């Protein structure tokens, strides 16, 4: 794989940005991106597909008289670049005709840099037959468990080689890798079926992530727990103390803290689709979001995490900042456009696009729950009647991120301080600040794990956002657990 897929990339960028500058636009940038995505998908003890997709193109963003235009093309030629630039300018002029409030960008120093994902083993250099064999063996192990009727297993890897150039003088090159793997087992019993899943974190690192995940060692446990889950007794609705594992919390944090902390949502940009936010701007600095145990920190600098790309798609350097500190809401995820609307002098650098063909929008940062001082046993010890939840299940939340409902992948009853047997049909419901207000303990850093998402939907046309959420186990008191059946 050549290091620079397009030998004319600088010439192409220069041609495009010359047109932008000549138009009188106050700002413009170009992103040239070459993505390679390899997906191996197994299903029921067979490899259903192996696909490798090359996706190359460029997108040009123009800010003209305070209004945006964007055009993009997969035709990477020196003739196409100025043509696409002209279209982006024309579109920006159209936007300007309806602009009542002009866009102003928060200042950012000029950056010239190259960012490369650290990797021990290049995932694209690992033999395909070894990857397929791993998935086939994993599914075979899963099916050795009596009661298992279905399985799936997959590996996913992506390499993004990107060049960002702006009219302000920034020039940034990226060579980024991300990968993940997963498998699941589905069991049938007494007319019901249930699945148990295993997921590696989505992280920016090499194939060592997959090797360290030990699929074959985990497969028998996952299969056994699928069978235990489908046979488990149902749960009585009522108030329970919950102990949530880091993988489960990654989704809870994502939906109930990550999205409401996106400033573009709070300002109404997503009102027609993803929704707005209950964390409106006047609440910043005073609103009690959670208990004093809850500190949620955005960290786009932590190596290996999905949003730690060095710079965002505004060309802003990645940063670390507080979203919630000791239970108080204090900060937003921002880009250069919306940051100045709340008086910030600099963007937090959370503006990302999912491809060359998409315009960057504010995305959730790597928001994580700051570790506490408890041990996992200590969290269980004070629970008389509770439920321990691992992994992701059903989830749903209103468009302002108040009213949510989460399931999980596996549930165990906690009785008198001890985790006992599995139960099923656990769905808990809450109102975001009340739920986080009920947190009375977070495990220490030794329990911290990182899980990520590559399918966070937002924007029209819809884009997939990538971010990693780290947490240690945490305990929540008296949460409303409702039944998993209709009408309950």
């Amino acid at each position, binding site marked *: 794989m050549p290091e620079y897929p397009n030998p004319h990339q600088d010439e192409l960028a220069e041609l495009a940005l010359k047109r932008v500058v000549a138009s009188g636009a106050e700002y413009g940038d170009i992103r040239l991106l070459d993505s390679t995505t390899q997906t191996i998908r197994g299903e029921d003890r067979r490899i259903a597909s192996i696909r490798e997709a090359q996706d190359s193109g460029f997108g040009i963003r123009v800010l003209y008289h305070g209004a945006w235009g964007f055009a993009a093309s997969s035709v990477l030629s020196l003739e196409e670049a100025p043509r696409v630039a002209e279209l982006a300018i024309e579109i920006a002029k159209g936007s300007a005709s*309806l602009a009542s409030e002009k866009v102003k960008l928060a200042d950012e120093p000029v950056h010239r840099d190259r960012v490369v994902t650290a990797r021990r083993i290049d995932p694209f250099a690992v033999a395909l037959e070894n990857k397929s064999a791993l998935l086939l063996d994993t599914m075979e192990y899963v099916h050795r468990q009596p009661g298992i009727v279905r399985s799936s297993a997959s590996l996913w890897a992506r390499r993004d080689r990107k060049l960002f150039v702006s009219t302000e003088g920034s020039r940034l090159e990226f060579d980024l890798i991300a990968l993940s793997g997963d498998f699941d087992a589905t069991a049938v019993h007494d007319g019901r079926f249930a699945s148990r899943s295993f997921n590696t974190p989505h992280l920016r690192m090499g194939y060592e992530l997959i090797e360290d995940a030990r699929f074959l060692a985990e497969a028998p446990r996952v299969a056994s727990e699928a069978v235990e889950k489908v046979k488990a007794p149902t749960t009585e609705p009522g108030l329970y103390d919950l102990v949530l594992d880091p993988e489960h919390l990654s989704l809870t944090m994502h939906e109930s803290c990550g999205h409401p902390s996106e400033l573009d949502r709070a300002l109404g940009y997503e009102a027609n689709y993803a929704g707005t936010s209950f964390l409106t701007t006047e609440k910043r600095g005073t609103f009690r979001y959670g208990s004093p145990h809850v500190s949620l920190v955005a960290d786009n600098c932590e190596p290996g995490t999905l949003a730690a790309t060095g710079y965002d798609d505004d060309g802003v350097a990645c940063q670390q900042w507080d979203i919630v500190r000791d239970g108080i809401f204090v900060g937003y995820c921002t880009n250069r456009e919306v940051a100045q609307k709340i008086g910030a002098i600099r963007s937090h650098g959370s503006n990302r696009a999912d491809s060359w063909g998409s315009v960057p929008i504010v995305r959730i940062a790597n928001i994580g729950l700051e570790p506490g001082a408890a041990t996992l046993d200590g969290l269980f010890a004070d629970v008389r009647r509770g439920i321990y939840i691992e992994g992701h299940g059903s989830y749903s939340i209103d468009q302002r991120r108040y009213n949510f409902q989460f399931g999980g992948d596996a549930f165990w009853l906690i009785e008198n301080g001890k985790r006992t047997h599995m139960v099923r049909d656990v769905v808990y419901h809450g109102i975001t600040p009340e739920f986080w207000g009920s947190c009375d303990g977070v495990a220490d850093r030794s329990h911290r794990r990182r899980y990520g998402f590559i399918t966070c939907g937002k924007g*029209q046309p819809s884009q997939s956002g990538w971010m990693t959420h780290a947490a240690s186990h945490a305990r929540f008191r008296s949460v409303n657990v409702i039944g*998993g059946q209709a009408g309950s």
Partner: protein
Amino acid sequence: MSTTGHKTWPKLASPDEFRFLADLVLKHSTGDHTLVSLHDQQSGTTRFANNQIVQNVDTRRGSLSVTVAFGRRHGTAATTDFTAGAVQETVTRATQIAHLSPEDPEYLPPVEPQPYLTLPTTRAETSAAGPARRLEYTNEAIGQCRMENLGAAGIVSSSIATVGVSASTGLFAHEERTDARFSLTAQAGEATGWSAAAHRSIDHLRVQERTLAAIDKAKRGLEVRELPPGPYTVILEPAAVAGLWSSLLWTLDAKSYEKGTSAFSGKLGQSIVDKRLTLRNLPAHEDLLGIGFTTDGLPTMASDWITEGRLTQLAYDRFTAKERGIDKIPTLDAPCLSGKGPSLPTLQELIKSTERAILVTNFWYIRTVNPTDLTLTGMTRDGTFLVENGAIVSAVKNFRFHESPLQVFNRIAAFTNPVEAITSETGKLLVPAMMLHDFHFSSVTRF
């Protein structure tokens, strides 16, 4: 700004150009079987919020996918680069992957040449539409909202795509597809009203009518009352019906059915919803977004899926269909749900006939809670009202529901004729508005 579309863009791949690309692939492939797929699209979206444009984008993306098979070993590679060298590299990569792949017991060679219906998948007015036309509609929606002192957030989008499938079996299909969309959330402080449309023709979006509908809902939401959770008679507008039915349609796959991992397992031929309901696929319907062929190159077709409440069809993959001896695989690209017997002509008539009910404009974030009985959850959104004695009397705070479509669609009190419906989370369907008894709202949110 020109109003006649994109004169500056390179043309999308025509049938002849796709045949040239496909022949290039087939000439270089050494596989036993080769399948080539094309998706070449020019799309644009003007997005607005707070009464001004916040995004205005136009993207041209062409993609060519090649699957090469040796016996039952197969591999796929794709590229966005249509130059001869890149296409040949893509064939080479697909070939390498196929050689390194294990045998797939479910692999089937590409289908033989197929007869296809000629469907109204493209409209000239949409392919000619560009940023200027989208700006015109955006201006109209924002202007109407401004006149009412409301905020407007929404999109106007249009696209044209050429889609093709070709194979070493002689299979060849190529089709042009246009798509135009409009959706608007009108905001009156905390209150919101929503409306949306999608059509092959940009002329059929009815922007003014839908804008006024969203404005009316937002204005009615200014005074809102909170009702307790519990079972209610509901009137679901078509978008809300579409949300529940889409969740049902996505789980009709035959493989899950046969493995016992489907809510429908054992129910083929049995009654699953009210016997007045029939679900058909109507790819030739001009108000649906039917397509001429699938990604496998199979022809789409009109077909019955639920007949008078009975489940009569499953969604088959090619392998499972072959195992069951099914030659023609029914598709579900253009669903139409209709009711038999007395129906009311419009939503307004349905409201007039109602003593007391909750009127739901739309659902949001519908997710499966229990896949065994298809229990779903989700929130009402952008217009939830109390109807009493034939009229809307107030807005109500949004509810979370906890229901299975397999139960609630057996509790139908009344329905209208089917009309167009689309949401941000569903494809387009034709469905009636419906009144349902004992619809279970499990909690209330803060707005």
